């Protein structure tokens, strides 16, 4: 296939509805007359869906994706398939990691000198690791499961049904997109507090934001099977910090 990076980029933007009428017409004509460009579109569709499913789109692309790309049931079904495939691949990767461990253990017992060498290496690694940790403080998760939540302002207990997240997550972290109630200037700052069923609370780092929504991360290791609520605080404008009425709910199963 001869699709150049420029064509690939143009097709991606076409799929997200980001092209003007003239460029869109150009792409459409190529799609009709050039089999390779058409196949590139089919591949790009899947890649875009994968990027969305694993939380790799930025907020603007995510909004375009939901508003434009996911407009038909056919593509929504493709998204569900991509989520299943992603989950399967991640589960398989975790299983492979688990299988490797016993192999290492038998290696230690058959070669005792290896354990001395490994101890020395481990001590060195610990020192280097501590220094690295102190410098970087946090390790960024590499893979994400995603969920988009809308604020629940109902005061009744039965309100809107909470979104569901299933364990095992099949990713390093859960990326939660919180739709803001009404649009807000991008200069506003947000603070998010996660509250578990038992009342335990902890702050979450806001990793991305635009006028429509913000994104926060929860490491997979911190999720238990229970219900969670997120409370949103906003700073900006004339008043100081303000708690937004309502909460974002999700259940981990």
């Amino acid at each position: 296939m001869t699709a150049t990076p420029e064509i690939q980029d143009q097709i991606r933007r076409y799929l997200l509805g980001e092209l003007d009428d003239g460029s869109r017409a150009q792409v459409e004509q190529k799609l009709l007359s050039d089999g390779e460009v058409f196949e590139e579109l089919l591949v790009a569709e899947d890649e875009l869906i994968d990027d969305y499913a694993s939380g790799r789109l930025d907020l603007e692309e995510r909004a375009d994706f939901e508003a434009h790309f996911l407009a038909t049931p056919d593509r929504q079904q493709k998204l569900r398939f991509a989520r299943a495939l992603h989950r399967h691949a991640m589960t398989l990767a975790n299983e492979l990691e688990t299988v490797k461990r016993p192999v290492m253990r038998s290696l230690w017992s058959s070669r005792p000198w290896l354990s001395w060498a490994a101890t020395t290496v481990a001590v060195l690694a610990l020192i280097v690791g501590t220094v690295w940790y102190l410098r970087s403080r946090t390790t960024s998760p590499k893979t994400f499961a995603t969920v988009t939540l809308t604020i629940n302002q109902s005061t009744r207990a039965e309100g809107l049904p909470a979104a569901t997240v299933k364990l095992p997550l099949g990713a390093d972290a859960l990326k939660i997109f919180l739709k803001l109630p009404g649009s807000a200037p991008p200069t506003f700052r947000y603070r998010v507090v996660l509250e578990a069923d038992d009342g335990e609370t902890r702050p979450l780092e806001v990793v991305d934001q635009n006028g429509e929504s913000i994104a926060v991360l929860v490491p997979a290791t911190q999720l238990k099977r229970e219900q969670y609520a997120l409370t949103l605080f906003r700073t900006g404008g004339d008043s100081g910090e303000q708690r937004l009425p309502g909460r974002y709910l999700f259940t981990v199963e």
Partner: protein
Amino acid sequence: MNKEWALTQDAFDRLLDWLDADRIRAGIRYEEIRRRLIKVFIGRGCMAAEDLADETINRVAARIGNVARDYEGDPASYFYGVCQNVHFEYLRKKDVLETREFAAINSVTLRTNLADDCEPEYQCLEACLGHLSNKNRDLVLRYYQEDKQAKIDQRKLQAKELGIAVNALRIRAYRIRLQLERCVLDCLKNDVARMK
């Protein structure tokens, strides 16, 4: 033109003749054009993409006598011109109420789909992976296993092992994925049928 015009066998035969003198190649070309027209309409957010693609083809077929005689160039471009008109009329016909209902239905569907888990698809996928050859199953699972930089490195390595370019691997993975996706859809339909 007469919008109630229905595609006749004679017009369809002449349409195929225009697409290619060889009837088999003409059939393939026809299917390609139809499939691509559907994608164009989907790209424009039309729910009735298949109907609009068929309407486009019907209109071309209705004038096939003149078109085959006077038009020079790639037939796909001619179909594209007609598709523009069909889309324009479709937009004009959609009244405000229909648009609102459509948006509301679509928004509900989207919310439902996004909130749903993918458990049925996951179960079907596990079964469908069993129908692939070992070679194809390994290829597709390795292809989708890693993330970010690790994924790029993994795919380069995989392409090197197979002796093909990364882009060729991308297409190969896409084609296997498509098989899987079709199998999962069939499996879901069978599950629904069993539950009825």
